[in-house]
């Protein structure tokens, strides 16, 4: 299984553990991810202005260069996935905007590339049954709550990732690792996204609702594929909300994957968490006692 691969900025900075756990896991699963030679930031958010195509320039350039390497481009970050896939949709379906962007980047790219999320590779190409057979350290009974947020699911007609109101890819993934899946009503609700940059605690309300909805149903860990969700949900537990062991660590799905595959702890890259995942993972024997997380 070979793909071109777009890491994106955040995985090279604040979310290093997301990438290191994913790449190490991909290696043992026989998934070959070939990093694009010249990638640039996707822009982090898909522009909702139809009269301005300039924000599409950077993701379109990435798509055009990925097309020269093959037919499928893999991403890990939910935001990169959303922006690249939506830009690809514009390049495929909107001749007017496509011509404009192509003229600017001096390409003739027509959207004939498939943008896939790493979860889709695990589900569709490897298969969750095969994944379950690769598990070395079953996370038996770990109560894990999936958190999709927005960017993997919406808009559903363009992304076609999963059922937008009742998705189950993360549930199926967690089951394959041996987790006990904790369903909760806020798994597809917004965490507040970039409104987190607004001053004060204003924007942490939605994130607290998400954490509380998972915690109240017994979740001991929340699993995401978005660095911004990870940050918002984790930071919302600062102070009283996460004290007295009531906090729920928020981690990337690839970190659980690497643990279940029995990979060394140095690929996990747990860093800077408000609610550290270390104690939980040690308590279930999924991490050695000398770990620093």
């Amino acid at each position, binding site marked *: 299984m070979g793909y071109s691969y777009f890491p994106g900025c955040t995985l090279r*900075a604040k979310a290093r553990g997301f990438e290191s756990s994913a790449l190490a896991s991909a290696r043992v699963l026989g998934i070959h991810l070939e990093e694009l030679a010249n990638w640039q930031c996707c822009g982090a958010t898909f522009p909702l202005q139809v009269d301005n195509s300039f924000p599409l320039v950077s993701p379109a350039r990435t798509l055009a260069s990925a097309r020269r390497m093959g037919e499928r481009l893999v991403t890990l970050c939910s935001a990169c996935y959303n922006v690249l896939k939506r830009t690809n949709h514009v390049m495929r379906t909107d001749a007017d905007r496509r011509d404009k962007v192509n003229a600017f980047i001096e390409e003739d790219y027509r959207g004939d590339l498939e943008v896939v999320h790493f979860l889709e590779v695990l589900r569709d190409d490897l298969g969750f049954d095969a994944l379950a057979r690769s598990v070395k350290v079953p996370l038996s009974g770990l109560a894990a709550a999936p958190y999709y947020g927005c960017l993997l699911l919406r808009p559903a007609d363009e992304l076609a990732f999963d059922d937008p109101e009742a998705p189950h890819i993360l549930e199926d993934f967690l089951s394959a690792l041996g987790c006990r899946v904790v369903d909760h009503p806020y798994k597809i609700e917004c965490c507040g996204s970039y409104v987190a940059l607004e001053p004060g605690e204003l*924007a942490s309300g939605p994130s607290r609702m998400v954490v509380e909805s998972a915690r109240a149903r017994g979740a001991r860990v929340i699993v995401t594929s978005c660095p911004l969700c990870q940050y918002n949900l984790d930071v919302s537990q600062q102070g009283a909300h996460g004290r007295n062991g009531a906090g729920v660590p928020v981690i990337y799905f690839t970190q659980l994957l690497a643990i279940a595959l029995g990979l060394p702890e140095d690929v996990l890259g747990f860093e800077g968490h408000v609610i550290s995942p270390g104690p939980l993972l040690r308590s279930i024997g999924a991490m050695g006692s000398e770990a620093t997380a």
Partner: protein
Amino acid sequence: MVSSENRRKLLDISGEDVTSCYQCGKCSAGCAMAAMMDLLPHQVIRLVQLGQVEEALASRTIWLCASCLACSARCPRGVSLPNVMESLRVTLLRLGGRHLDPVRLPADVLENAPEQALVAGLRKYT
């Protein structure tokens, strides 16, 4: 006349003709940010329908919309509310204003927020 002109300007930016909204409120019912907003999302749409764009522009709601697309995913009339919210933000930003001054971001946010949050936020707010 003035009001239809305002509406047309927003339509150019958003690609969304708000006339099809029948004010059922489903968008607002499912909006994760609604509790913090001064106007609910369907009220913003109503103001735009009426061409009362100044009022919509003065609302905190347009800056609290997180572009999560939950509303547009559920709207029975297929209204792209997030595009309308963006067209309102952009109307102000294109005049040279900015909603957020990066220099004034708290040190802990600058230090800890993922790059994607900073880039997305600055794209929406400046």
